[in-house]
């Protein structure tokens, strides 16, 4: 094995890849500040009129609101179910538990469009098409893998004897869960929650399939807007989405850094 030399060529390649990954996402920022009434880069000065539209137009506001409600509730469901599932599998530690864990990851593997199609057929029967509850449930299921994965990772460092210790000291199963297991996997639960939230926040395919004509989340509004007109407000919405996601990710990074500092200082 030989170490990779940091030559000019490899550095340039690295920066190119990075730009290719990041720049398309950030092109919406200047576009959102354009003075024209169509999608373009600002040429004669900047204007915040499209941002104003975003926060005054009732359609966009209700989109933001719907997205927030759906993301929050579906995340709560995914976190509760995913955490309990991961802890249960960890406690059992059998082959069946391993299989259950694999099944939980399945929503991540199945193409969303296939999954959405299946859900649509089911929801027609259940009369859930076009309801907020329907989208929340679907997002809770597709958000589940993130929680199961992160909590399982946290649990892998945990001594299985902790549960026995807690119970021998007088804690029943719910007390053991609440006072010993969950506090120790909290970082994993938080990471999972953030991923599940972001997943629901920018999910489009499922909403298109089962949102019917009643539900317009932010991504759905953008999709319809792009098809029907070229209003630069869409760029403002996109910028807002990116900013929001960045904030959430930074919070998670901050939490992780704080935790590592505490652990590092402790060792």
């Amino acid at each position, binding site marked *: 094995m030989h170490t990779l030399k940091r030559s000019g060529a490899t550095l340039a390649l690295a920066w190119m890849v990075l730009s290719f990954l990041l720049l398309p996402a950030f092109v919406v920022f200047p576009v959102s500040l354009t003075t024209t009434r169509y999608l373009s880069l600002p040429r004669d000065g900047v204007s915040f009129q499209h941002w104003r539209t975003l926060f005054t137009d009732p359609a966009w506001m209700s989109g933001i609101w719907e997205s927030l409600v759906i993301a929050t509730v579906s995340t709560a469901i995914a976190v509760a179910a995913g955490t309990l599932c991961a802890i249960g599998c960890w406690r059992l530690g059998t082959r069946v538990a391993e299989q259950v864990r694999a099944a939980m990851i399945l929503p991540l593997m199945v193409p969303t469009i296939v999954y959405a199609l299946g859900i649509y057929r089911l929801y027609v029967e259940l009369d859930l098409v076009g309801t907020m509850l329907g989208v929340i449930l679907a997002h809770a299921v597709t958000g589940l893998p993130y929680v199961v994965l992160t909590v399982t990772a946290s649990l892998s460092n945990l001594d299985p*004897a902790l549960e*026995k210790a*807690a119970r021998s*000291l*007088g*804690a*029943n199963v719910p007390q053991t869960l609440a006072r010993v297991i969950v506090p120790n996997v909290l970082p994993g639960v938080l990471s999972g929650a953030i991923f599940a939230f972001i997943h629901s926040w920018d999910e489009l395919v499922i909403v298109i399939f089962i949102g019917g004509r009643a539900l317009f989340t932010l991504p759905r509004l953008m999709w319809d807007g792009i098809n029907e007109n070229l209003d630069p407000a869409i760029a403002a919405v996109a910028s807002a989405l990116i900013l929001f996601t960045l904030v959430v990710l930074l919070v998670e990074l901050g939490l992780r850094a704080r935790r590592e500092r505490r652990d590092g200082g402790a*060792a």
Partner: protein
Amino acid sequence: MDMNLGAGAGTADQAAETGLVVDRVVKHYGRVEVLHDVSLGIEPGRFVTLLGPSGSGKSTLLMCIAGFEEVGAGDIRLDGRSLRGLPPEKRDFGMVFQGYALFPHLTVAENIAFPLRIRGVGRAERESRVRAALSMVRMDGLADRLPRQISGGQQQRVALARAIVFEPRVLLLDEPLSALDRGLRAEMQEELKRLHGELALSFIYVTHDQEEALFLSDKVAILNFGRIQQVGDPATLYSRPVNRFVAGFLGRSNLIELSGRVISGVFIADPAGSPFAVPPRLEAPGRDDGPCRLTACHRPERAQLAAPGEGEGLALDGEIAQVAYHGTTLEVALRLADGSAFHVSLLNRGVLPQRGERARVLLDPGSLVPLADG
């Protein structure tokens, strides 16, 4: 009428019981029987050790006592009351684990306070009891550390404090010292012995380390293949093992095949049926009169080395095949006339037997113990 009387007598017996009683416990994992008809009494305040190799069922028995495993048949009772169906958290048994199992998110003091919080003990009393427990295990001053900030030995002390702070009815210890290095283990053994003396609490201790078991315990139960092989105080177990397994597991031993006959509880070896110059007589209670073969066990340190032909009594003649020098002791292997080896452990008095020399071994009177499965 008689039936009623019988049942009544049974419960009266159980009501009079004190301490923990393991009563004919059977336990299966699937079709594998891991505990076979195990019975054991643990009197209040005793230090009882379950000793056996891995897979002997000793840990399973401890988990049954703790309530983490259900017994298949039989019963476990504390002061005459059955523990069947009682979950671990309701048993009030302190427990110490091999990996310490301290809660990583809580400080030392919070770990020890945990069982008191669960029991709703008020803050002032909680703090004073945590302080008392900390000083009991000599850990004052480290109350605010997190478990990962203290050493393994210290963690085990905290685990001990946490397991005794709520005044449990019994303390269960599952190989608590096996993760520690040698020096620390010796120190913690002393510590456990001291704690047991101060606490008036029954300790049930699981280990595979025979020296640890002999040093710590009032009573040792030796298990193998899910069966209790022998129960007794360390001295009895060591000097009078009942079978080959105990003789081999607890210390080293010479096994000698003898043939002869039993006459009213005394075994008399035939002159041709033993390697001894004078055929030995052994107490063999419970054996039927008549011709019989048996295996006798002898501990290597219960013998002296003498010059050929010197000394009387239980004497074996042979040639010195090997001498191992251990400083305080010498381990001498003798080859007997029939080609079998006989081991003698001698205190080093400065005289080294030489390989190839003829020698006579004089066995201490009473040091030959007949084994049940011989």
